[in-house]
């Protein structure tokens, strides 16, 4: 059996190890600063504002985390059993102290709630593009995202299906794309998101947070890219066995290049549609001939 002295030392070592572990856990975020906060890039307002809000939350939480864990570890070391120590004072509570920390915790969380609620509309609702949007909040959550007055904008309908995304563009002439959504830079893109089978969730972490694609519902999200590039995101709602392979991409290009892409895509779609129609006519003709021969017999 170990002597009491050894036991003390062992406990102390264990506590120090615990302290070191928690210290590492606390220090690690600093070492990995870029992976600490949600992705952002491309200058998309929803992602950037979320990032700011997350950082505010984080910088409020970190001192509290360190303080509480610190007090916990300190009390473990300070108040550990010592041989011959008198029985501890039988304190049953301290109402004033307890009310104090209840109010304190509530105050911190109220501040956080207010900050969050202040940020929420700017992240959910498309940017006004400088102009005032009277009464915009009232329709913010309806199916039709209000297109902000002033500044260019584009509305894209995003349809999830097992296991790919389809994007339908507005305007004369059919324009759609699968997998990769091409958008012009410096343009407010509003999304109408839905699904044609099971639930999916459309998410490009660097541009905007998740918007679930729910069959029978139209969800909305928006973004605006300032830098050209390709941004990638996984489907974020379990949608079947190939859920992991359901990836969506957004490619941002200058408005001129975007127009060129849209024209090319439209003509490709027209060509393909014509080829399909021809093929269908040929098949029908063959079928008709076959039926005719059957009739003649």
């Amino acid at each position: 059996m170990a002597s009491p002295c050894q036991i003390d030392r062992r406990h102390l070592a264990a506590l120090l190890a615990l302290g070191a572990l928690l210290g590492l856990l606390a220090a690690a975020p600093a070492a990995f600063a870029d992976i600490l906060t949600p992705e952002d890039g491309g200058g998309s307002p929803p992602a950037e504002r979320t990032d700011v809000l997350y950082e505010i939350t984080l910088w409020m939480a970190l001192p509290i985390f360190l303080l509480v864990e610190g007090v916990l570890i300190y009390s473990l070391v300070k108040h550990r059993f010592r041989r011959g120590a008198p029985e501890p004072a039988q304190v049953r509570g301290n109402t004033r102290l307890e009310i104090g920390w209840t109010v304190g915790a509530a105050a911190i969380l109220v501040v956080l709630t207010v900050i969050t609620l202040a940020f929420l509309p700017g992240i959910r609702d498309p940017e006004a593009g400088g102009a005032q949007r009277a009464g915009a909040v009232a329709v913010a959550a309806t199916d039709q995202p209000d297109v902000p007055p002033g500044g260019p904008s584009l509305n894209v309908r995003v349809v999830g299906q097992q296991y790919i995304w389809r994007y339908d563009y507005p305007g004369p002439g059919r324009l759609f794309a699968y997998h990769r959504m091409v958008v012009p830079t410096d343009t407010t893109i509003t999304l109408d998101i839905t699904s044609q089978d099971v639930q999916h969730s459309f998410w490009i972490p660097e541009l905007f947070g998740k918007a679930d694609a729910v069959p029978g519902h139209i969800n909305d999200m928006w973004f605006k890219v300032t830098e050209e590039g390709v941004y990638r995101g996984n489907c974020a709602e379990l949608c079947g066995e190939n859920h992991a392979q359901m990836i969506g991409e957004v490619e941002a290009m200058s408005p001129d290049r975007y127009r060129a892409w849209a024209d090319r895509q439209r003509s490709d779609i027209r060509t393909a549609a014509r080829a399909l129609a021809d093929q269908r006519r040929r098949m029908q003709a063959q079928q008709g001939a076959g039926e005719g021969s059957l009739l003649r017999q």
Partner: protein
Amino acid sequence: MSTAEYRAQEGTIDPGRIAERARPQIVERGLRARPGGWLGWITSTDHKKIGVMYLIATFMFFVVGGVEALMMRLQLGAAQNTIMDGQTYNALVSLHGTTMVFLFVVPVLAGFGNYLVPLMIGARDMAFPRLNALSLWLFVFGGIVFYTSLFFTPPEAGWTSYAPLSDDAFLPTGGIDAWIFLVHLTGLSSLIGAINFVATIHNMRPKGMGFGRMPLFVWTILIYAYLLILALPAIAAAVTMLLTDRHFGTGFFDPTAGGDPLLWQHLFWFFGHPEVYILILPAMGIVSEVLPVFSRKPIFGYSFIAYSGVAIGFLSFTVWAHHMFATGLGDFANGAFATGSFLIGVPTGVKIFNWIGTMWGGSLRFKTAMLFAVGFIAMFIIGGISGVSLASPPVDFQQTDTYYVVAHIHYVLFGGAIMGMFAGMYYWWPKMFGRFLDEGLGKVHFWLTMVGFNLAFFPMHWLGTEGMPRRIYTYFPDMGWNFWNMMSSVGAYILGISVMVLVGNMIYAYRRPREEMPDNPWDAATLEWATTSPPPAHNFDAVPVVYSRYPLWEDRHPVEGGQPAVIAAAAPHTSIDERSHPADTQVAVGEGESNAHLATVEADHGEHEAGHAFHLPAPTIFPMILAFGLLLIAFALLFSPPILKVTFLITGVIYFVVAIYGWVKQISE
């Protein structure tokens, strides 16, 4: 180290005092022989045996759920791993989540509650011992019906089974049906168990134990029971609607038939969020019992801890839609549910401050039970803080359905509920089995758990913020997720080893020669330690009268200005089952024997001379047969060959009817 040595070393209690206590003679006047051996276990209506069976069954499911987790971590350890395909992975996701929630954490707490609540409130059994047996068997057969799906197709829609993926159009296989029956059977089990806890705690407390003197674990079990009663009907309705959608052509959740997939989410989370607190509150109760004993101080701010639990219970019904921020509820609903979710952080934080207050100024003994209780606090702080960030809708848009949420739920449920359960295991093991779990192995278990747990789950916060969604079976190597996934897998296997150490510890404790276990080896303060270890079938020779929150510490710390520090034998204690049943075994306290079971107990000899005897419920097989009948009926719906369907249905109904008939006949004899 023996208890006497421990206590002598700690220098707090005179080891000789235990031996001085004489035990009264127990005379069994059984009218019907009690079955022994395994039959004695499965026909038992003794809350202690039922509690132990709960703990054994849930621990087995814990190991199975853990193995499923390790298989997933094996696949995710490297990018584009090819150990399994998406279908297998989704099955593992569903099995692991469902097992851990429905077959481990909820019932393991029911097991602790079953064993301990009657002992802690000085009762002889639960209010409804036969219903108690029914709860156990419904839970066991719920687990069996779920795992039957391994032999055909396991469910693949996650533990949340979101419609329409879980509808027959997308997953026509029987796995989802097995999941539905699991929810039905275990839900019924929990509901019956919860009603039993409520009836027991409200009615069967001893003289003097008002709500203000009730042990905090009993408080949390009471809140747990109320939350189950309020939350379970929502999920029971939801899975029944899903069942009729799948098989009988209704369209509750089918948008092509006018239904709404979001209805599923509302119903599921109306149950699912209170469920989270159902899982954590009793673990908080365990910690609130363990900390004072090993700090040698009463709990700091008893009422704040008790009422903050009640506050959490209320608020837990106002926050369910924070699981649905990304579905597009609109700014107003998102704001409202966010506010509720932030608010629930207040009572949770208060509990943590009070626990630290309990240890402050104490004389802390770091037994394994205490280490796990402290580990609970340290880890729960992390889970709580990540929870606060998730309560913010915009942050949630980024973090939901990613590994950040996976990290959060595991910090709350493993770092919280399971660490609390481990603390309770080491703490009450000597009471339950009359043997200690080895302290050395226990400490190895604790440190492996801490290291493995944090290595497995802390990096998941970073993976989530880096954009890794949950429930994906593979990922591209260029996503920057490789290293932390590898580390996480290593951590998971360390955690696996730690559980093996625990199993080894249990086997070692079981095989070790039995030592004489004192009633109160930890020098604890609550009533379960006032009886032998393990307790006799009737729990207490004399039902105590309670004058304070810490009845067994009264000799050391008399209540100031209060009643004398004495636990006196109470008048004959009446439980529902004590109304005379001829078939029941009667246990009488022998006359003329010393009733000074505790040094401070004064027995009411007059009562015993008048021939007082108390009744213990008779063993019965019918609850098990009834549950088995329901299992067969579930099988009838699960198997497609008509001959099997008809056979299962008929035998199931026969078992069910016979069980009800036999049950009623037995109690009316």
